[in-house]
């Protein structure tokens, strides 16, 4: 159990962490999220007694870290992969740590096996790749077989196999009743690893809730319903029936309806009862990644901008086309669609380029680039999102299609109809 109360850290006049209070409970993986420079590592360092808080306290099992008896046996930490002396063999590195906390030397070989570094145990860690360095760091954290584990960006530099391994390792550690606290800036990673999320931005707490709650509080799920274009009256009929049943209905520009507050089967039943045929009934879900980006967009310290190469570029030959910018590159806020209430927002949904038959298979996916989602495996509509996406959106999301016109500063407007129109046609064609 890690407990922070009013934790504040200032470096000179820069406040890295401000008034942070949270608890990390045993038996679960707690994700610690925030953009770069949001104070994650500083908080971790304060938990581990490396930095003294300017004010506030943080305790592990009721003790400040530096007062813990044999801390290494109670807390294991991976701070950063390169926190080792590069000239030392992996085994000697771990051996020195084991000796420091009175751990038998055979445990060193054990953890080397656990992280898969037994073959390079006698190699200098200077030559290790980032992924091997991470494994060595994880080995050091596991050395004392501790009850509390902290990992700062554990999957950085790991290969897919390693990422999967770390994911399962954390879950199994938590399942043994340990406290596992993992920082990351990758929401998609946390969505599949963590049970509980603590999100900070600019050193302040933004959210502290379970992944389940986080999803329902932050994702803007809706169902798209399309009635036959040939019979517009059916659309009105369905809309009123759905509203009567407690749903929230918004017409979309291309004639579809956006329904929130009703589960998919229920929509189907209502349509059936009111004798309306459906051409489309599809779930749409904002990914956790988006929810997280929306939450932290005001708290991002380091933003990328377009590389202007001012004065370095040669004049374009008359008539030559300037190169197309990659959509999203350097456009402020491209990654963070405005909140649902904001006009001009639509959750990202890729134009369906697949042939009609295959299109549905791809349909559920676009909103969720990661296997993010339903915590209980049920239809996400079961827990109806509170907020209603307003307005028919002429919007284009961070569409990955290379459509953004070079002159366009904002990704939002006119580029939109193009990707949206395409799928509509393909659907209509069916």
């Amino acid at each position, binding site marked *: 159990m890690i407990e922070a109360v009013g934790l504040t850290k200032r470096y000179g006049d820069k406040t890295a962490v401000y008034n942070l209070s949270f608890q990390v409970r*045993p*038996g*679960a993986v707690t994700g610690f999220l925030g953009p770069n420079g949001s104070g994650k590592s500083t908080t971790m*360092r304060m938990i*581990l*007694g*490396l930095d*003294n808080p300017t004010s506030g306290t943080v305790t592990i099992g009721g003790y400040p870290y*530096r007062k*813990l008896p*044999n*801390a*290494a*046996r109670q*807390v294991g930490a991976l*701070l*950063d992969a*390169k*926190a*080792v*002396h*590069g000239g*030392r*063999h992996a085994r*000697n*590195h771990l051996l*020195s*740590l084991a*000796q*420091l*906390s*009175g*751990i038998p030397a055979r*445990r060193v070989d054990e953890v080397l096996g656990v992280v898969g570094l037994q073959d390079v145990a006698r190699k200098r860690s200077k030559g290790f790749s980032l992924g091997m360095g991470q494994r060595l760091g994880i080995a050091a954290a596991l050395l*004392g*077989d501790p*009850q509390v584990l902290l990992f700062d960006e554990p999957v950085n530099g790991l290969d897919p196999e390693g990422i999967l391994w770390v994911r399962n390792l954390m*879950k199994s550690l*938590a*399942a043994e*009743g340990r406290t596992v606290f993992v920082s990351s800036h990758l929401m998609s990673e946390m969505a599949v690893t963590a*049970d509980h999320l603590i999100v900070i931005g600019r050193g302040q707490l933004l959210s502290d809730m379970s992944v389940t709650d986080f999803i329902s509080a932050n994702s803007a799920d809706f169902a798209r319903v399309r009635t036959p274009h040939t019979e517009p009256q059916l659309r009105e009929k369905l809309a009123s029936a759905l509203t009567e049943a407690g749903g929230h209905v918004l017409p979309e520009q291309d004639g579809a309806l956006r329904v929130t507050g009703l589960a*998919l089967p229920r929509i189907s039943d209502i349509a059936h009862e009111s004798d309306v045929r459906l051409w*489309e*009934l*599809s*779930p749409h879900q904002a990914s956790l990644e988006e929810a997280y980006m929306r939450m932290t967009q005001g708290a991002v310290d380091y933003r990328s901008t377009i590389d202007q190469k001012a004065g370095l570029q040669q004049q374009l030959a008359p008539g030559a086309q300037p190169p197309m910018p990659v959509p999203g590159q350097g456009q402020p806020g491209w990654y963070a669609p405005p909140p649902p209430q904001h006009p001009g927002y639509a959750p990202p949904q890729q134009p369906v380029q697949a042939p009609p038959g295959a299109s*549905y*298979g791809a*349909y*559920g996916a676009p909103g*969720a680039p990661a*296997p*993010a*989602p339903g*915590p*209980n*495996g*049920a239809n*996400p509509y079961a827990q109806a999102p509170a907020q209603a996406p307003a307005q028919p959106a002429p919007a284009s999301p961070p569409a990955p299609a290379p459509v953004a016109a070079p002159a366009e500063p904002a990704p939002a407007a006119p580029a939109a109809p193009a990707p949206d129109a395409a799928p509509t046609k393909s659907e209509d064609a069916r």
Partner: protein
Amino acid sequence: MSTPQHPSPQAAPAWQGAPGPAYAAAGPAYTSPIPIVRTHLGHAIASEWTKIRSVRSTMWTLGVFVLLVIGIGLLAGAVVAANATEGDLAGDTALSFGFFGLLLGSMCVITLGVLTTASEYGTGMIRTTMVACPSRGRVLAAKAVVFFAVAFVVTLVSSGFVAMVDVGMLGDARQPTGSEWLKATFGVSLYIALLGLISLAVGSIIRHSAGAITIMIGVLLAPLVIAIFMFSSSLEDLRQALFEYSIPNQLSVFYSSSLSDSGPSGWDPLWIALGVTAVVLGGAFALLEKRDV
């Protein structure tokens, strides 16, 4: 067509079952089967010994040190033995020819002392160490003990070897007395090891290898070099003090061959070094406790 697929539920269930019950049964926390021992300075010393013997910089600096002390010491003895005429060496003992090698070799000890602490800051290893052992004072104490022992033993062995060979080689010179032997081997080794210990403390304070090494080499050489160029007679007293208390001159006191007749004599340099070490090491301990790692 009206039953769109949910890719997510299929992908998810593998992990979804686990957290629920585990979270609920958070009561009995995990306990390790490995017995927990109460740690003390001994554990830290074992750890620091592993650290100091498992990096190449130790072998390099000590290797060069031994090479310089023995090489230059024997060379000096040999040159003197070849060129000295009858009576040249009447007043001196052969021990004093070990001085030159030791003067150069002290830079190696300084470097190793600085690296023992500062390299952990340079590589980030210090964070790993301090997480494993949050009693910071214990870590620094262990480093000091291990380094001092290593530096002392290596200096004692190499300076003792040079002294014995030189005395054997230069039969014409005055036979050294017991106290002269003690000063030229045991005493000078303590002094060099203390010099290294000061460097270790400076490394812990500065936290930067190159910076700390530069400072220590400056401390070693600057007073003497500055004093050489103090021609003004009004600075005569200062010049004298700089000469007498410069580290090379203090080192030469152990061989009874000081630059001047006043100033430190006998075992004085050792007491001076001991005092400076205590102050600097004390400062390092205080700062280590107070500062962020």
